[in-house]
């Protein structure tokens, strides 16, 4: 019997792989992402590969100098957003003889969000895992005395869960790997209150984080990582002894982290900080406990940042 037509021999049509938005690197000059160096269309707002804001690139070109990245890392709910927001707000108000100028209105978002929520006696919303939802701060900073020198800093506010997922399975969130690789300094936030209560969870997360950085930078066995790393004990208002001797507190209560730092990191310093002066608790509608920051009493916010800057 006659066939209506010859059977189709061509393979089933397949869609191109849909990992991220289409790379336009083959199209020639566009906007090269500062974080992953992917070429993007000139009118793109976010990098198609890593979701970093391309406005950073445009702003850095205007300054004619490469910005330096300082990464703030820590577990979920440790206080990264609050710390970064309060820090930037203090710098904007010339605390500690610093002069800080935000580059782009987007750089003010995190401090506005944090200060506004704290003024309203609530904590800022949880940072989503999606990188396009992260806050990015690009500031020009200098200390006015003794040697004024401008430094451009980029400080992303990464989600703790994204950090945990990347540490557990490297390359899950490539933007994190790229950011940490490019970082000139790292501030590791650790929940001092939980550690003081005997929980090992902060210690394990910090150990994993430092181990990840160690592996990623691939230092040889007899060499140590030289990237300045500030270990910042957060929520130290719960355990004031942190302020007296942060180093001793870490050695006693976060011993795994302590040993890792002593063994593999050349340039580590320990600090304690607190943002909330007093905390109240309320019962919500669904029988959950809502912490309420009653007032702000920042302590130890600038010191780790000052130290990092002095090491750059």
């Amino acid at each position, binding site marked *: *019997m*006659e*066939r*209506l*037509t*010859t*059977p*189709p021999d*061509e393979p*089933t*049509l*397949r*869609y*191109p792989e*849909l*990992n*991220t*938005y*289409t790379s336009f690197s083959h199209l020639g000059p566009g906007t090269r992402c500062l974080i992953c160096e992917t070429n*993007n*269309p*000139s*009118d*793109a*707002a*976010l990098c*198609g590969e890593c*979701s970093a804001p391309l406005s950073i690139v445009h702003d850095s070109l205007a300054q004619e100098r490469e910005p330096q990245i300082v990464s703030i890392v820590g*577990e*979920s*709910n440790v206080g990264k957003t609050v710390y970064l927001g309060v820090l930037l707000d203090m710098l904007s108000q010339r605390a500690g003889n610093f002069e800080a100028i935000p580059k782009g209105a987007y750089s003010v978002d995190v401090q506005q969000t944090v200060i506004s929520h704290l003024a309203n006696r*609530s*904590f*800022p*919303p*949880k*940072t*989503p*895992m*999606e*990188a*396009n*939802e992260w806050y990015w701060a690009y500031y020009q900073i200098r200390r006015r005395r003794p040697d004024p020198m401008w430094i451009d800093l980029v400080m992303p506010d990464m*989600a*703790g*869960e994204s950090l*945990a*997922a990347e540490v557990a*399975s490297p*390359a*899950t*969130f490539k933007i994190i790997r790229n950011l940490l690789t490019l970082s000139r300094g790292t501030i590791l936030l650790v929940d001092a209150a939980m550690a003081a209560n005997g929980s090992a*969870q902060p210690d394990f*997360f910090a150990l994993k984080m430092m181990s990840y950085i160690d592996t990623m930078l691939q230092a040889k066995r007899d060499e140590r990582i030289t990237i300045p790393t500030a270990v910042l004990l957060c929520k130290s208002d719960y355990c004031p002894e942190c302020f007296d001797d942060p180093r001793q507190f870490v050695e006693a209560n976060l011993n795994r982290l302590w040993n890792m730092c002593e063994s593999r990191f050349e340039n580590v310093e320990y600090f304690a900080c607190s943002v909330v002066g007093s905390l109240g608790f309320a019962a*919500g*509608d*669904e029988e*959950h*406990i809502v*912490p309420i920051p009653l007032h702000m009493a920042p302590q130890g916010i600038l010191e780790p940042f000052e130290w990092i800057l002095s090491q750059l």
Partner: protein
Amino acid sequence: MDSQPALSVGGAAASSRAGRPHQQAPCGDQTVTAEQVIFASLPGIMGRGYRIVAASAGVRAQEKAEINRRSPSHASMCDEDPQSVGLSAYPLATGRYAVACSTYGPVEYSARGGRRIDTRIALLDAGSYRRFDCNPLRVYRAVADAVGPEPITKAPTSLPRLVLALRSSRTGDAVTLPPCLDAATDDARMAYLGSILLAGERLIVRHVDAPLSLLEWAVLSIPISRRPGLTLSAGLKVSPSRPSHLAVLSRDAGETERAIAGHHVRVYDGNDPPPPYTSPYGDWLDLVRTWWAAGRFTDLTRLSSRLDAHADPHDLSRVVCLVRDLDRVRQADPSERAAIFDRYRGRVGATDLETDLIGRILAVTQSAAGTKGTSVREKAPAPAS
């Protein structure tokens, strides 16, 4: 609001329905076994925050990484209504397919505003997904039947594989249009969505009342051969970390534009008429429009679900021609009917579907003409597809 069955991501490992112990149904022709993963923000012994809190034994590390990257976290649903449902479906690098259903849970554990988003992901191999007609909404309904409505309260210590029943709105059953879609006005919109999906381009449709229903019908309007490679989402905010061929949003507060600016992703407001388009699949899309406007949804879904060997425009045009001739022959006068009979007498199709359609055309002509002594057995008039 989508009129989909209530689904909670929860359902502890030991029970799939309230008050009844879990009973592992025998895996047979009417069931499909799937791996499952729960992604949520639950405080636990090993950690806290959004992460994979439980997974069945057969989930691979590579799949977990991809699920971590794609699953929605805090404030990622379009709608703040606690009853909202989000859905995403995507192929995994391992060759399996993930269908993820997201619902709101209780308040997020750190009480920093907003509800927790719980996501249950079913992982199916290619054959199992095909048994659901590569329709993620069918998988979603089967998962809802399997796990029940109980919310998750804590991370289960172990998670069994899902046993999914195929009986949930089987393709071939009579299909009715959900109230949110209109046969009279949505024909052009369905054809437009089909043109985008067939072209492999990316489209965001926003301001849609029932995103899940629209997504399902967009999928059913294209041949099944073109469905497996699609990445789809409904009810979830757009994010570069979960790119989709088709994303349907109920609301858009403006963040979508920033996420896609400059990246050649089309945006279509569901309240507006669809923009004009050109497509090499014009014949197929014309058929979709015609049948949609005529209310022939059952015929459309049956036909599209049989097109598993038709991928390119030429193949589809051939099938469309046969289908139109089958419709025509039923109402044709004797001379036209004879002409159609002569056109197809002694021929077979390139595929089983085409051969079947030819057989029906010949059967109808013979039945109408009362022709005797032919080599094709007489058949009773059958539905168009």
